[in-house]
């Protein structure tokens, strides 16, 4: 470990694209061979006539079948294990609120590689062994706990498993232990700041805090900036999912221009969730990940259902690993209207740029005179005028901005605040009344 180096693993982090391609090809072949021990994959490969030597480049991954969350459920608990259970040392499981839980197994090497990914990320944003890392994330089955714990320890930091909640104790730890970095969900940091204010603690003067890792819940760029401004320090976006290991899969570098996804560990694809064909860089699609190093439970072309897009690869930080945009929502939410794929998040993004509008909206798809139409009802934030012309020009401007984004002209309707249904938890944003679906 050279504490002056910006890279923890320069041999992997600074690979050129050609080198990444070569490494991925080798590792994908190894992964296919490991999958021979998994009846689920062995049978599919046999049916499709796939052999490891058919893989000549990472693009050949398109010859391989997808894996879905349902496949994980159907093979619960150990059906996708590629090694005997005696070689596994850990399992993480989802809560299973919507069916069978999903189980992910890890060998000792898997845990070690997972810790390497997290350590690499934390190093990337400037943390070193003399930092004090407080992990204010849930522990237990939630991978954000042990994932960051092992990673921070691997880097060599003094690591405080503070776990989630109890803000007064968190603040005491931060002050007493000289905490310099925290990992937490973004909404918790806002809460922590409020408690600091109540307690008369100024994070700039009274603590040594300088860095946050935030993730595990969707948040906007605006929310990140709010956190950074509040505390006067940097907050880096972390991507993880338990199916891959947990946190570590992707992380922002100090450029904060997308999350680097580690292509020595994963093959990253962005596909159209309908056709499953790859989409061009810059276009939103579903993130599909293939593990390249996992021993206990390799996953081939796992459909994450998360929507994102490729921002680029080469980065001023010196890394060429693909940079992805923050997650844009879930592919389950995609609408197809007159052949155009539209995600509610695209609509939301545009509506949020109008201060006259409130945050509640409803998209209705309907068939009128054999034409499929989209109606966007959006609540007025307040009655900012009593002038028809101004209200109508607002409607017109919203319509035009939406058309520029989705390439179709929706019918925009302003509605009074509070008139759209608000559901508990996840709001219902799309109602499909089209004939074809009835």
């Amino acid at each position, binding site marked *: 470990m050279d504490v002056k180096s910006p890279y923890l693993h320069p041999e992997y982090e600074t690979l050129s694209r050609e080198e990444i391609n070569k490494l991925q090809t080798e590792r994908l072949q190894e992964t296919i061979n490991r999958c021979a021990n998994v009846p689920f994959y062995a049978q599919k490969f046999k049916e499709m006539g796939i052999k490891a030597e058919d893989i000549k480049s990472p693009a050949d991954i398109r010859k391989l079948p997808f894996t879905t969350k349902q496949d994980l459920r159907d093979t619960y608990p150990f059906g996708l294990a590629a090694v005997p259970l005696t070689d596994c040392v850990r399992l993480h499981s989802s809560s299973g609120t919507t069916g069978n839980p999903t189980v992910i197994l890890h060998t000792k090497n898997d845990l070690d590689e997972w810790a390497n990914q997290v350590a690499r990320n934390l190093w990337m944003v400037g943390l070193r062994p003399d930092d004090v890392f407080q992990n204010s994330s849930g522990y237990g089955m939630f991978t954000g706990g042990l994932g960051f714990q092992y990673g921070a320890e691997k880097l060599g930091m003094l690591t405080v498993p503070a776990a989630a909640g109890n803000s007064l104790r968190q603040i005491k730890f931060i002050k007493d232990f000289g905490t310099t970095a925290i990992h937490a969900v973004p909404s918790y940091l806002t809460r922590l700041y409020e408690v600091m204010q109540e307690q008369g603690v100024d994070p700039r003067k009274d603590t040594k805090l300088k860095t946050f890792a935030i993730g595990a819940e969707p948040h906007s760029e605006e929310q990140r900036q709010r956190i950074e401004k509040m505390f006067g320090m940097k907050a880096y976006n972390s991507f993880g999912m338990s199916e891959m290991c947990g946190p570590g899969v992707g992380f922002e570098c100090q450029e904060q221009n997308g999350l680097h996804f580690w292509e020595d560990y994963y093959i990253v694809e962005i596909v159209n969730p309908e056709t499953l064909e790859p989409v061009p860089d810059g276009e939103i699609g579903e993130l599909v990940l293939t593990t390249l190093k996992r021993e206990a439970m390799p996953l081939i072309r796992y459909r994450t259902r998360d929507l994102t897009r490729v921002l680029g690869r080469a980065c001023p930080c010196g890394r060429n690993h693909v940079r992805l945009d923050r997650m844009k929502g879930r592919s389950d939410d995609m609408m197809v209207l007159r052949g155009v794929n539209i995600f509610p998040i695209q609509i939301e993004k545009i509506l949020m740029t109008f201060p006259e509008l409130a945050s509640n909206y409803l998209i209705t798809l309907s068939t009128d005179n054999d034409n499929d139409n989209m109606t966007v009802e959006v609540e007025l934030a*307040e*009655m900012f*005028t*009593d002038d*028809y*012309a101004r209200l109508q020009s607002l409607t017109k401007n919203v319509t035009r901005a939406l058309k520029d984004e989705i390439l179709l002209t929706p019918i925009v309707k*302003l*509605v*009074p*605040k509070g008139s759209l249904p608000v559901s508990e938890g996840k709001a219902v944003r799309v109602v499909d009344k089209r004939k074809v679906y009835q």
Partner: protein
Amino acid sequence: MKQLSIFIENKRGTLLTVLNVLKEAGIQIIASTISDTQDFGIYRIICDDPERAFIVLKEQGITATITDVFAIQLEDEPGEAARVLALFAEADISIAYMYSFLLSGKGILVFRSSDTERTKQVIKEKSLQEF
């Protein structure tokens, strides 16, 4: 003059909801007008207590605002409205919307103009009587 402007969704019953809220609060409506467009309406009301009406509507989650409008008292004779409007037209002031009502034998002309300051000036210069 304070006018209450209420955003009305084009849906059966919304107008009644508003009127019921005002009824419960004992607000008396002096004059009102509503115009229809395809998607929404603005219900404009002159009432005895616009501030309180605004508060009770807001408490019920009804989108409203208080707007300053002009209310000019007219003589009860033919051509009076034309005479007054001509004064504004001469001063190059346009009318965004207008409605009128009778109160104790007096005609009242309510309107919002394109230029508040100049309208005030005309009212002063021509000695028009505000309601």
